[in-house]
Structure formats: structure tokens, C-alpha cells
């Protein structure tokens, strides 16, 4: 009868299995262009963090479209993102998007082959979205003045359809395709303004922003 230990794994292999550590990872995706213009290449940033703050420099990340097709890959840089503990990141070139509309994609982290490593990083993924629009055809200029004074209003945040902008010197501009969009304006202390804008050519829209009425302060304590 063979000694019992003859069926066991070699000591070295058993030790390696026993000591192998698994770290989880997680992903952030930012600077996603939205709206993104179809048929144009863009960039997105993808960062990966290890639960134990390991250096993940050189690791691979991939972008997958809504069908699960891997459309872009990149390697994480050697320096963590400023302001983070250890978020290794890469700028990934975005492939051309063909279809208009809201896209639901994902980024995934592909850890290196773990067979000979003491620390294993588990793969992770993160869903992100963006909106794709037709190439711009026209410029829409929004001129914003305060209703009471006629003075231009800065730092108004605007949406024109999927496009977003902020006013400077009372002016915000958009480059958009033809169509009808809802133009919304927001600034703290002012009433939200919302109007429908039909864009057929270059266009200037004048908006008077009114101050919100002073609300009786209900909190006296």
C-alpha cells in the first residue's frame, strides 16, 4: 500500500495554493464624452483600484459595447491618479460609434495570468453610458440676461437636449445637429427656465432669467 502522502500534492504546490491571496478590484470610468458625436473617435478614462491598494500598473482594461464585444483595450499607467490612494488608469481611445441614442457599455479589468502569483486580482467591470448624436451642423448661441436688471448672467448651467454648457459673460454656445430640443437653464437663486428650441440653422436665443422669490426663512434655530 502506498504511503498516504504519496497521493497528496507536492508540498510546494500545496503551499502555493494555501498562501495565494485574492484581492478584489473595482473600476471607475470618467470623462465619458456625452453626447458623443457618431463616426468620430473619442477618449475615455478608465481606472482600476485594488482593495489592498496594490500597484496595478501595466494591467489591461477593455471597453465592451452593449453586445459584449470588446471594442478597445489599453494598459494601465504606472502612476496612480492624483487625489486617489491607488487608482491606476489609462486613457482608452474610443472607437467610432455608428448609432445615435443612449449607449450602455462597460469597462472591465483583465488581471494578468494568476497561475504563478501569490496575489490574485479578481477581474471587475463597471457599466457606463453615453449618448451619441449626429455631427453638429449649427451653432446655437444663448444670451442670458437677468430679467430685472438686463445684466448678463454668468455661471448659468444649460442643457440643450443632450448637450450641456455653462454661460460666461452671459453667453453659452452649443454645436448641434438640426432638430427640436428643450433648452433648460439653471442657476441657484433663479427660477428654472425651460423653452423649446427648433434648430434649422445658426440661431441666437435670448433668455431673461428671473430671480426666484425670496422664501420666508422657516429655519430660525
Amino acid at each position, binding site marked *: 500500500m502506498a504511503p498516504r502522502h504519496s497521493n497528496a500534492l507536492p508540498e510546494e504546490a500545496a503551499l502555493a495554493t494555501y498562501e495565494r491571496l485574492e484581492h478584489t478590484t*473595482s*473600476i*471607475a*470610468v*470618467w*470623462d*465619458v464624452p*456625452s*453626447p458623443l458625436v457618431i463616426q468620430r473617435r473619442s477618449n475615455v478614462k478608465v*481606472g*482600476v*483600484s485594488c*482593495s489592498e491598494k496594490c500597484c496595478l500598473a501595466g494591467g489591461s482594461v477593455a471597453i465592451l459595447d452593449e453586445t459584449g464585444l470588446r471594442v478597445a483595450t489599453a494598459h494601465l499607467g504606472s502612476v496612480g*491618479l492624483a*487625489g*486617489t*490612494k*491607488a*487608482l491606476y488608469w489609462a486613457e482608452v481611445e474610443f472607437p467610432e460609434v455608428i448609432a445615435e441614442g*443612449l449607449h*450602455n457599455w462597460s469597462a472591465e479589468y483583465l488581471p494578468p495570468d494568476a497561475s504563478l502569483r501569490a496575489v490574485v486580482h479578481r477581474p*471587475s467591470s*463597471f*457599466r*457606463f*453610458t*453615453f*449618448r451619441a448624436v449626429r455631427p453638429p451642423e449649427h451653432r446655437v448661441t444663448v444670451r442670458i440676461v437677468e430679467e430685472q436688471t438686463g445684466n448678463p448672467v454668468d455661471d448659468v*448651467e444649460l*442643457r440643450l*437636449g*443632450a448637450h*450641456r454648457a455653462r454661460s460666461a459673460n452671459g453667453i453659452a454656445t452649443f454645436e448641434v445637429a438640426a432638430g427640436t430640443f*428643450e433648452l*433648460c437653464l*439653471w442657476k*441657484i437663486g433663479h427660477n*428654472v427656465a425651460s423653452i423649446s428650441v427648433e434648430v434649422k440653422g445658426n440661431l441666437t436665443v435670448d433668455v431673461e432669467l428671473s430671480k426666484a422669490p425670496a422664501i*420666508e*426663512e*422657516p*429655519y*430660525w*434655530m
Partner: protein
Amino acid sequence: MCAKRNDSGIGRREFIKKGAAAGVGAATLARLTTSDALAAPPVLKWDATGVDVVIAGAGASGVSAAIAARDAGARVLVIEENYKKGGHAILSGGRVPLGGGTSLQKKYGVTDSADQVYADHTNFKNPEFRYADRELVRVWADENAPTFEFLLANGVRFREDLPQAVNGSDVPRMFRAALSSNDLKETINGSDGSGVMLPLIASAEAKGVEFLTHCKLTGIVRERPTSGRVLGVVAYVQGLEGASEVRIQAKRGVILATGGHTSNVEFRRMFDPRLTEEYQTTGEPWSHQNADSEILAMAIGGVLWATANQTSESGVPITKTRHIGCRYGYQNLKWNPQSPMFKQAGASGLTVRRDFQDLIMVNQLGQRFWNELDDSYRFLNACLSGTAGAHSNGGKLNGGGPIWAIFDADAVKREQWDPTPPNVDLNGWFFSADTVGELAGKIVNPYQTSPMSGRALEETVAKYNSYVDAGKDPDFGRPMLLHKVEKPPFYAAWSTPILHDTLSGLRINSKCQVLDLQGKAIPGLYCCGEAAGRFALHGLPRVLVFGRIAGREAAVAKT
């Protein structure tokens, strides 16, 4: 600290000595509960005698009562559980909307009358006043102007600003007290409420009112358990060697002015079972509204009244947090790092300036639950809903659990925040991480009953970001979706609603006598301030007026 001997024998040393001899343990006052002495038996031996009126609580109502009682010739002792006088009110905004034709109103050409004040505060269209007991509103209206003059006569000074119209009235009544000291040791947090309290305290002391701090009311002594006259109080005095029990006789009356009940979880849940332990209270950690007055008075026959006021979903008994990432984020009380209470407060919080446009809010499961821009009771009700609790802590259904504001590095830039101490409290109230998934795992807080799933928070953020792309929030209808939550690092900041006003309390009559279930006055027992019910008016005007009435009436009560 008061250690002098006086006619009534109420020097601190005597108290502590007597208490120590009685073998009282060294429990801190903060840990004491009124249940320790609920049924205080009649005592034949008093540790202190010679006091006409004993007042529990040195806040706005208690000090007003003390001055009024002293003005009427009574010998007055005020006991206060805190180390310093001032109560809740010293941290208040110092706004005093008392009208009826005050001298300051006249100075600014405002025409007003007690009748107009009464009419404005009984308008059924205002749910804050809908459930008010008219008898009390009437006397309050009649005493508006005299109370304002009382404040002026006792040293309170007001800013020379045009008065504001408040509470749905067209008549300008609200003046704001002028800050009387820049010393945070005196004002505690530099609030204008100290402009009311410091002059009143100084006036009271100058007139001979005696104060005993570190002294907590724990019992009311009545001739028989639920009948007869109130004879005095039992209290614990905190000394260097521990807490000592003392019995203080009150020849004419005991005035309960300990504040309301918002800090007492079990008591506040009598009105609203959702208000479980995770909800912090305005004024804490400086002042605690422990329902001492209510509990002790109820133990000897007092009852609550007009309790609908507490849950009418009007006024500000519950508020949206405005300073996030700290434990105590009531919007008009931002803790100053130089405050003597700052160590207990922990952090000042990040003040949300842009109408909550820069963040999303999630429950302890990492799920959004409402339009974050809303600050109405619909938002608060969503916060307090049982959704979060139902899935955790063994299926606990009450309370909404922690609410966390989730935001990113871009939001920090837009709001111009510095997300580091002393602005944020890293001991369970503020977290940061490199990714959203990692952030969820970092959230550890005494009230977070189960870990937040990283995947759940990631899904919430991804969904919200998709709504920003789409320009529509189909879940909660949040308007103007301007910014995604996407740029690392990410943050989670405590944003759980803060409890504020006590709007319901003991039943009192127009003389501030505490009433029993039959509507009869309990002889010798008075109540004022937030512990008194029947009238759901927010802030200083209610407590100042009824404090003054209680003191005046107690001082002339038959012995």
C-alpha cells in the same frame, strides 16, 4: 462654579456633601434617566429649603421664568444639567418674532395688535397653527408685546434692521438679536441666540436668581403619587466625586423648562415610530432634549396635549441636512472649530450650496429613494420610509436608516469643498474611495446595520449617470440633471435628516400650570418652553412668552 452659601442653603458643596453621604453612585448626569426617580416619594427631609420657585432648565424659557419670578419677589433657584447656562436657545438664530405693537415695531412704523397676532396664528390654512389650542394662542398673543419689552428691559438688544413678516403674516414682527460677545467660550458657537441668552442670564444673576449647573432634574415630589401639591424636586448634582442626589423644596412652585423630547428616542417614537435612533437632533451635542419634564410630570399625573402638532408635516420638527459629512448637520447650526463643543461635535460639515445639484442620495442599501432636490416633507418621508430598514437588522421595519450623499471629485470642485477635517468627520460620518464600488465597502457607521453592497452602489450610480445622459429621471423625476457622478475619488457623506422642533408636550393652561387628565391644574407645577404643548410655534417667541408667564404665576402661587 457656585459654591457659596446662601439663605436657602443651596451651595454646591452642601449638595454634593449631602448626596455623597446618601451613597449615590458616580453616574454621570448624561447617563441618568428620569426613570431613575420617576416616582419620587414625598420627603420630609429636604437638602435645601427656602426657595420659592425651583426652575429646571436654564434656557430661554427657564431664564425668562426666573427673571419674571424674581421680579415678582420670589426667591428663585434654576438648576441646569449642562456645565453652562443658555440651553438650546444660546445656539439659536436669535430671531424674535414678537409683535402686537412693540416699541421697536412702532419705531419702524409698523401697526400691529394682539388681536392681529392672534388672528395670524390661528389661521387654519397654516397647518402649523391648525391644531393649536386657542386658549393658549390667545394668551400668547396678548403677551407678545409685554414680553418683547421685557427682553429690552433685561438687556437684550436687537439689530437695527427692518423687521420681517413671518409665519404667513403680512405684519413685520421679526427682529434679530445682536450678538453680545465674540468669545466662543461665552456664546458656545457664536450664534445670535447668545444675544438673547447672555443678557437675560446676566440680568437674572444681577437680580439675585441663583443657578446651579451640572444639576439634573430626576424627580418631582408631590404630596401623594398623583394628587396633592407639588412640594419640590429631586435632582442629581455632578461633582468631582460623582453625582449626588439632592432634594430641593419649592415653596411656591416648580417650573419645568428642560426643553422638548427630540433627543429621547423612545419618547419621540410615541409621536412618530419612524424616528429611530439614527436621527440626530439640533442642538446636540451641546443640549439634549431628553423629555425630562414630560416624563416626570406624567409620572405624577400630567398629560400631553395637542399631539397632532408633532406630526402635522408642517414647520420644522424634521429637517433636511444641509451640512453633510458630519454627525450634526442642522442647517442653521454649523459647528465652529473654535467652539468649546467642537470636540464633541466632531466636524463642521460640508455646506451644500447648490441646491443638492451636485450629489445623489442613497439609503443604506446604496439605492436612490427620491428626488434629491426636493426639500419638502415628501423627501423627508422618503428618507424615513422603512425601505432600508426592512432589509436589514433582522427585518426592522421602522426608521429609514442612514442616508448618504454620494458625490465625486468634480462635485467637490463645483461646491468648493475641502473634504478633510475639521470639515468632515472621518469617524463614521464621511468616507472617500477611489471607486464607487470601493466606497460602498468603506461605509461603517453605528447606524449602518448592514454593509452596503459595492455592486448595488455601482448600479445606482451607473443608472443615475444614464439618466443624466438621457436628461430624464424616470425613477424620481429629478429636474435639471446636470452632472454625472463619475470622476474619482468618490465620497459618501452622512446626510440623514436632523430632528429639530418639539411641537408637542405637556398640557398647560394659560397660567402655564400643568394639567392632569381631567383638565385640572396640578398645584405648584408649571411648564414652559418646548416641553409644553398645545401650540406648535417654532422658535423663541413661544418659549420666551410662556417662560415669563410661568415665572410670574409661580411666584405668586398660594403656598
